[in-house]
């Protein structure tokens, strides 16, 4: 910004004069040192430990809450499925009786196992990924 224009040079000089003295007040460093030395201001190592403990406690609470939510979800789904089975038991029985001769027994067992496996995999994945 060193312009050759004498008016700009003069402006630069005046701006340096105005802003050149811009600094914190006397005793600023001492006040900072006093603030970090007071007991209320935790030392870095202690601060880190406190932070670590706080985060661990928050994580523990979150996991407990999620475990409750997962249990309630599974119980709710189970109850709904049970109620549906109870309500439509006769229709399901009728359907199974009618379909049994037409469907291969191995296919029926394999399909059921695959469906249960997929559901179990989903629950495990959900628990591990924390979603």
């Amino acid at each position, binding site marked *: 910004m060193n312009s050759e224009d004498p008016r700009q040079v003069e402006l630069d000089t005046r701006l340096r004069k105005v*802003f050149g003295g811009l600094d914190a007040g006397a005793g600023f*460093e001492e006040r900072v040192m006093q603030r970090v030395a007071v007991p209320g*201001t935790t030392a870095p190592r202690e601060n880190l430990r406190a932070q670590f403990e706080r985060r661990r406690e928050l994580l523990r609470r979150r996991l407990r809450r999620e475990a409750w939510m997962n249990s309630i979800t599974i119980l709710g789904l189970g109850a709904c499925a049970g109620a549906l089975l109870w309500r439509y038991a006769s229709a399901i029985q009728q359907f199974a009786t009618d379909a049994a001769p037409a469907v291969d027994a191995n296919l029926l067992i394999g399909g059921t196992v695959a469906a249960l496996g997929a559901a179990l995999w989903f629950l495990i994945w959900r628990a591990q990924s924390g979603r």
Partner: protein
Amino acid sequence: MPADDAIIALIQESRAGEAFERLVPAYRRRVFGLAYSLLRDRGAAEDVAQEVFVKLWQALPRYDGRAQLSTWIYAITRNAAISAIRKRRRSLSLSDPVVQDEVESRGALAAAEPADTSLWRQVDALPDRQRQAVTLYYQEERKVEEVAAMMGLPVNTVKTHLHRARASLAAALRIAGLEVA
């Protein structure tokens, strides 16, 4: 920056206390200047600078060297100053008559010649980024690159702000009858 290298070496040796003792004098003016350029108030800038150094004291052991030390400190300062502005809810302006009286009573300005007081006011009337660039650039004969790092802007953008600010100031002073040279 050699001072930064020494400070970083101390942090890596887990000597954060000694690193902090070196950091405060090395960055005092820069942190204060950056806070002032955003807040436009000496008292508030000093409060923010104090807060920044306390934060640095607490965060220093976590500094991992991924960002440059100065970049990290400038980012903390900018965030602290912006938080202070939000807390204050309204930005104080030197053109506000109430604040003007207060500002004129302050040491630096009270001691200034009338022409400098006028210049100060013209700078205050500049757009925020231009005013900030001018304050930081002329505070300590800084390079444009450093001003850019402090403001968190590209170098060319800062050059443009400085160029426009100087043109505006020259024109404003000419109109005010305080033409330079």
